[in-house]
């Protein structure tokens, strides 16, 4: 019997004030996979991510995360148990301004585990070390650059070792070396721990470096226009928008 997919999206549709952002989005994400949601600006990539984690209401369809449907969670405890098993890195980092980076990473540990304070501090430090911010643990978000905030956001998302991590534009705004380092980190974590990644991005190099499979959304089509291995899509797709995207051509 095939393993239950980590994410199962069935005919998802999102609309704002009657305007459809996308419809009929159907895909599955398998365990340990790095799954990329790609597409041009304004096609609804981040909206799809938010719809998957229940922040944007679905106009149609159902989304199952780790075998459970967040929108149909029976009670708050079920919902919290599911949310504990996913991590999200927001596009801007979304760090809490009144807390240091270490305290930001400690927050989910404090909320969801019984780890004693020294353990939380050591673990938060290690998570920050993992993303190259080991020496910035005591700094406030206002004192760091945008790229550092993004990496701190990843450290916080990874705090609880969730089996499913969502990353919204992780490489955007970073220098190529840091961005490549981040790609390497994502691949390492996926390989070592079996963590499943859903990455929203339009950074072509990142997509090709880390993506096992991807779907592509399109603004004109208001939905998915391609699904598969990004390297194969680059070589074999006949869809003009997909070809233009991978070859960096004007549409």
């Amino acid at each position, binding site marked *: 019997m095939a393993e239950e997919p980590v994410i199962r999206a069935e005919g998802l549709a999102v609309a704002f004030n009657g305007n459809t952002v996308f419809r009929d989005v159907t895909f599955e994400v398998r365990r340990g996979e790095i799954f990329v949601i790609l597409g041009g600006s304004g096609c609804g990539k981040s909206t799809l991510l938010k719809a998957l984690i229940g922040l944007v209401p679905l106009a149609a369809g159902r989304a199952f995360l780790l075998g459970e449907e967040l929108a149909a969670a029976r009670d708050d405890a079920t919902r919290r148990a599911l949310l504990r098993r996913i991590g999200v890195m927001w596009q801007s980092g979304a760090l809490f301004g009144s807390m240091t980076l270490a305290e930001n990473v400690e927050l989910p*540990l404090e909320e969801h585990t019984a*780890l004693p304070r020294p353990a939380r501090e050591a*673990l938060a430090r290690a998570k920050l*070390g993992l993303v190259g911010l080991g020496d910035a643990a005591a700094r406030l978000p206002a004192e760091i650059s945008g790229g550092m905030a993004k990496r701190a956001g990843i450290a916080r998302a990874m705090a*609880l*070792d969730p089996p499913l991590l969502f990353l919204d534009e992780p490489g955007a705004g970073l220098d190529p070396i840091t961005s490549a380092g981040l790609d390497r980190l994502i691949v390492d974590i996926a390989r070592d721990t079996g*963590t499943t990644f859903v990455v929203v991005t339009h950074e072509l190099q990142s997509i090709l470096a880390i993506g096992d499979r991807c779907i592509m959304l399109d603004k004109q089509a208001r939905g998915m226009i391609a699904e598969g291995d990004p390297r194969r899509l680059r070589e074999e797709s006949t869809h003009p928008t997909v070809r233009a995207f991978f070859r960096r051509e004007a549409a």
Partner: protein
Amino acid sequence: MDGRPDQAGARLALREEEGGRVLAALGWLDMAATARLWPEALRAGRGGGIAVLDLSGLESLDSAGAVMLLTAAPEAEPRGASEPVAAVLARMRRALAAAPAPVKPRTPFHPITAIGRATVGVLRDARSAVAFIGETAVTALRAMARPRLLRLSEVLRHLDEVGTRAFPLTLLLGFLIGVILAYQSSIPLRRFGAEVFVPNLVGISLVRELGPLLAGVVLAGRTGSAFAAELGTMTVNEEVDALRIMGVDATAMLVLPRLLAATLVMPVLALLMNLSGIAGMTLIMATLGYPSAAVESQLQQWLTLTDLMGGLFKAACFGLVIAGIGCRAGLSAGRGPRAVGDAATAAVVGGIVAIVVMDGIFAVLFFRLGI
């Protein structure tokens, strides 16, 4: 790692071997198990000397478990680990090495240093305030010579936000203050059979002092904070820098319309506060058996136009100062969302303190001038 509960009963075992002490970890060492085993692990590692970490019985290891083992036995050699366990341990070892434990700097308290630092801070703040006042004054003079500098649409927008939308709150507060003052003053005056003088007391208090002062408090709480938050957000988002780089006079565009709107609208708010307060007082006097004609007669006899104009002039000055403090707090905001909150607080506190201080100065001034 899939957050598997601590079902397999992870445990630690310490034993002595020829090469030294060996710490063995067994089972699923996840966060729940780590939370339980952390004190035991640290006790085992106390004093150092753990030469080997025996991981052959470890079925799974997550980052928290790895941090615990590496904290308890940082120098120990791992043995018998499966490939995934070894990978997690190696990764967390690298991560910890890249994140040295922070050394909390010891900063002994020196009173002289603290006083000096505070004095320098106050002087810097004062210099910045003088610079703001000077820049605003120069821009206002330039705007008089070139009225195009002042954006009328912005002035109208702020007149609406600062004034029209504050009318209901001002009317409600004024009415209630009138009611309260009338009731409270009628009690002692009744003892002397002087209840008829309640309109004099309430009327003079409102028109000369409380009307402008309370309208100022409404403006500081409602508008001063809004100015600071709006301009603070613009500063944090680098919109103010963008204006300056585009060659747009930020003071003319952002500060002058707000100052003008607040200065124009404050006398109106104070007047509304006075009128609604007098209405509230008249209502209470009616319940005490004094018709409105009696109240009107008392007010006409004891209140002068100078009282009213003096109060409205004070109100205009309060409006100017509250808006100035709000704008300055916003434009000098630091970085991050916290800075916006700090700016709003500084605007409200600064605004209220400033109008009370100014009211004291006006009281002395009006007394000396015989107004």
